[in-house]
């Protein structure tokens, strides 16, 4: 395959044009998601077979309304198209436009066309043409736009084969501009610009000077020239203004002759839906019901597969022990690796369910209505309507949620959103909550239909949101940042979501989570197992010490083994670590074993359950391993004789996990997104103090 020819294709278009559907049709499941170097914007690429010897490497660029970026995602689009040394620099660009908003969509097309890169125009959603009374004269449109047009319906797989054919022949595409816009803005100015950068297409030079980016592919000399041109800011703004008006004029002229809509065919479904979904009262009621439904899915439906997974991994551990010969290697597998993997796999149902809901809401166009409904309210807390989506995503994982806050234009609103996201109950907290609730809250039905355990879970979610809102109010008062507002959102047409897109999205997000967080969890599980099954001299002499101590008493072999194991754990490396922090955590009601779990979950919260499983597995009689819950329930406080996980300790732990910032991944992302250590440190310290104080208070009041 090495002698195959590869054509680099960039897919670009406004949001909501079906660009992703087209990408999925072209590449199928042959996709990979990586990160752009240095930043964490997802880079979606896929391979598409064009002929027996030629393949296309398709890059799905983030959706953008124009080539002038207003966010990090959009900056990336610009950078990919300007930097010829970039390894995704396209041989051919596909601009996807949607039939209904063709006018606005073509603005981006005319900008791209001026870059002198071969460009194909795909007009998507043509299956709706008849119903909407739209007529296009493709031939005439092609002539006026100097391009090749492909009519497509990505969802129905119409036009995809034709598109592949056009990509194959990309060298024949016309790269001339549509109209000499620059001459009509200010001829003299643009001649000066042309002479300054004779090596670039004129429009590229114009983009270089209108953006505030550092373009690292420029030579020092070019950079100096760029800076000189940038000094005349008034001029640049005026010309950008003029440029946009001229582009719209050209588009209007082109469309006048080759595109017409029979208005009588238009239906007002959108208007009717909008009146209901953004209604002063019903709008909020519907949103609340949808949220409730989502949470129902995460808590209720997900528990069935999760219980199965939990049980399956417990039996797998025991099975490994019966099949393999006893020894260190078997122990590593049965006590380190298998529970470690189980601790990752158990998240899949919840994450998949949450992402399914979120992608459905996004696909239908409902998310924009939520932003519209919530903006004014969120602004009272110093955030934006656009903060709602990141906050909801935060219930799955804070890391993608923080990245989703990028489209919040105002820096202060964005910063506050980033800072409070870790308070929302992410799925890593769920296993911790689930197991603690199962241990301390009775499984009872109250008021006929409500389950007490479910209510506790709901209360913890509300607690997380409340903490987020209050800290946002506080931050809004304290932070003195002035910023320009940039709040323009498109209210897209309602659409029936595409099953294929949703499935791809869910698979991709779940995979990213499992392989990203999964590696950390598995690694920590193995380290923990090692630290718990090794130790200094006292650990090695455990058997002799215990045998000597109890010489006179009559003990069965089984009990003796138990004593030895417990002694070993106390004198293992991790036992010493746990004991060294015991004085600090004692006021919260924890012993050194919980201390070990606490230490390990500073890398990632979900490790808590896995850590306890490892600890108690090592501690327990290994013949009847049982599920994690059974092992924890059997744990007794040696001083009081009570269960270790009693009500006060349980509540104290729940509060600690609700508030503390225990996620290395999130801290790293916050550092990257805010470009400063100040904010992650603020989160770590602030949330840590809140967690400690509330846990101590809760334990002492309840005890």
């Amino acid at each position, binding site marked *: 395959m090495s002698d195959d020819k590869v054509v680099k294709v960039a897919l670009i278009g406004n949001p909501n044009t079906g660009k992703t559907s087209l990408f999925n049709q072209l590449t199928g499941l042959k996709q990979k998601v990586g990160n752009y170097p240095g930043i964490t914007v997802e880079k979606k690429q896929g391979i598409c077979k064009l002929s027996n010897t030629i393949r296309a490497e398709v890059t799905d660029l983030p959706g953008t309304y124009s080539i002038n970026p207003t966010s990090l995602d959009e900056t990336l689009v610009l950078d990919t198209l300007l930097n010829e040394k970039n390894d995704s620099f396209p041989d051919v660009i596909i601009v996807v436009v949607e039939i209904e908003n063709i*006018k606005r969509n073509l603005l981006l097309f005319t900008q791209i066309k001026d870059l002198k890169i071969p460009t194909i125009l795909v007009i998507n959603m043509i299956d709706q043409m008849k119903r909407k009374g739209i007529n296009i004269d493709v031939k005439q449109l092609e002539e006026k736009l100097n391009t090749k047009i492909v009519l497509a319906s990505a969802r129905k797989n119409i036009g995809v084969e034709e598109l592949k054919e056009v990509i194959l022949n990309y060298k024949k595409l016309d790269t001339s501009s549509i109209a000499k816009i620059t001459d009509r803005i200010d001829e003299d100015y643009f001649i000066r610009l042309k002479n300054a950068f004779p090596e670039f297409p004129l429009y590229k030079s114009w983009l270089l000077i209108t953006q505030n980016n550092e373009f690292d592919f420029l030579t020092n000399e070019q950079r100096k020239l760029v800076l000189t041109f940038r000094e005349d800011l008034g001029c640049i703004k005026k010309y950008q203004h003029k440029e946009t008006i001229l582009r719209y004029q050209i588009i209007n002229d082109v469309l006048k002759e080759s595109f017409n809509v029979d208005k009588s065919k238009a239906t007002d479904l959108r208007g009717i839906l*909008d009146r209901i979904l953004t209604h002063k009262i019903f709008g909020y009621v519907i949103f609340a019901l949808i949220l409730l439904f989502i949470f129902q899915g995460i808590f209720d439906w997900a528990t069935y597969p999760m219980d199965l997974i939990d049980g399956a991994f417990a039996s797998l551990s025991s099975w490994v022990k019966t099949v393999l010969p006893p020894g260190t290697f078997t122990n590593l597998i049965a006590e380190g690796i298998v529970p470690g993997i189980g601790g990752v796999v158990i998240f899949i149902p919840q994450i998949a369910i949450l992402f399914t809901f979120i992608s459905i809401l996004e696909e239908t166009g409902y998310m924009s209505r939520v932003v519209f409904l919530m*903006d004014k309210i969120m602004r009272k807390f110093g955030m934006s309507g656009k903060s709602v989506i990141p906050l909801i995503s935060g219930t799955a994982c804070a890391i993608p949620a923080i990245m989703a806050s990028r489209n919040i234009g105002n820096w202060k609103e964005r910063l506050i959103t980033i800072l409070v996201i870790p308070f929302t109950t992410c799925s890593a907290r769920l296993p911790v909550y689930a197991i603690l609730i199962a241990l301390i809250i009775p499984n009872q039905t109250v008021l006929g239909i409500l389950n007490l355990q479910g209510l506790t879970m709901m209360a913890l979610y509300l607690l997380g949101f409340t903490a987020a809102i209050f800290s946002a109010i506080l931050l809004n008062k304290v932070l003195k940042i002035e910023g320009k507002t940039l*709040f*323009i959102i498109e*209210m897209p047409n309602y659409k029936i979501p595409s099953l294929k897109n949703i499935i791809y999205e869910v698979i991709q997000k779940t995979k990213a989570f499992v392989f990203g967080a999964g590696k950390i969890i598995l690694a920590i599980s193995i380290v923990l197992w090692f630290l718990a099954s090794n130790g200094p001299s006292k650990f090695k002499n455990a058997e002799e010490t215990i045998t000597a101590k109890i010489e006179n008493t009559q003990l069965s072999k089984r009990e003796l083994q138990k004593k030895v194991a417990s002694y070993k754990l106390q004198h293992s490396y991790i036992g010493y670590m746990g004991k060294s922090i015991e004085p600090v955590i004692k006021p919260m009601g924890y012993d050194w074993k919980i201390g070990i779990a606490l230490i390990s979950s500073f890398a990632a919260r979900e490790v808590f359950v896995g850590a306890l499983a490892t600890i108690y597995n090592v501690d327990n009689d290994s013949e009847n391993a049982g599920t994690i819950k059974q092992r924890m329930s059997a744990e007794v406080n040696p001083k009081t004789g009570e269960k270790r996980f009693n009500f006060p300790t349980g509540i104290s732990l729940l509060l600690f996990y609700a508030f503390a910032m225990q996620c290395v991944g999130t801290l790293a992302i916050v550092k990257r997104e805010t470009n400063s250590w100040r904010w992650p440190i603020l989160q770590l310290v602030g949330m840590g103090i809140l967690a400690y104080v509330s846990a101590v208070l809760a334990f002492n009041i309840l005890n």
Partner: protein
Amino acid sequence: MFKTIANLRIGEKAFIEKLCLDNIPLKLLEMGCLPGIEVQLIQTAPLNDPLYIKVNGSHLAIRRETAEKITVVK
């Protein structure tokens, strides 16, 4: 007295008269908000902010403070 998009009644249409790039983001122009173009206020959010407008075929939501900077004529 100036009339701006923020003064429109729900359902009312008017033509954009002037917008100044100093306090209007370029993005709004690029989304189709241009001088001489007809704009219609479709709806306001429950607390009268943001505003849901239709302009040049685009359906957009903008905040009241932005809408107040776009003057319109009948």
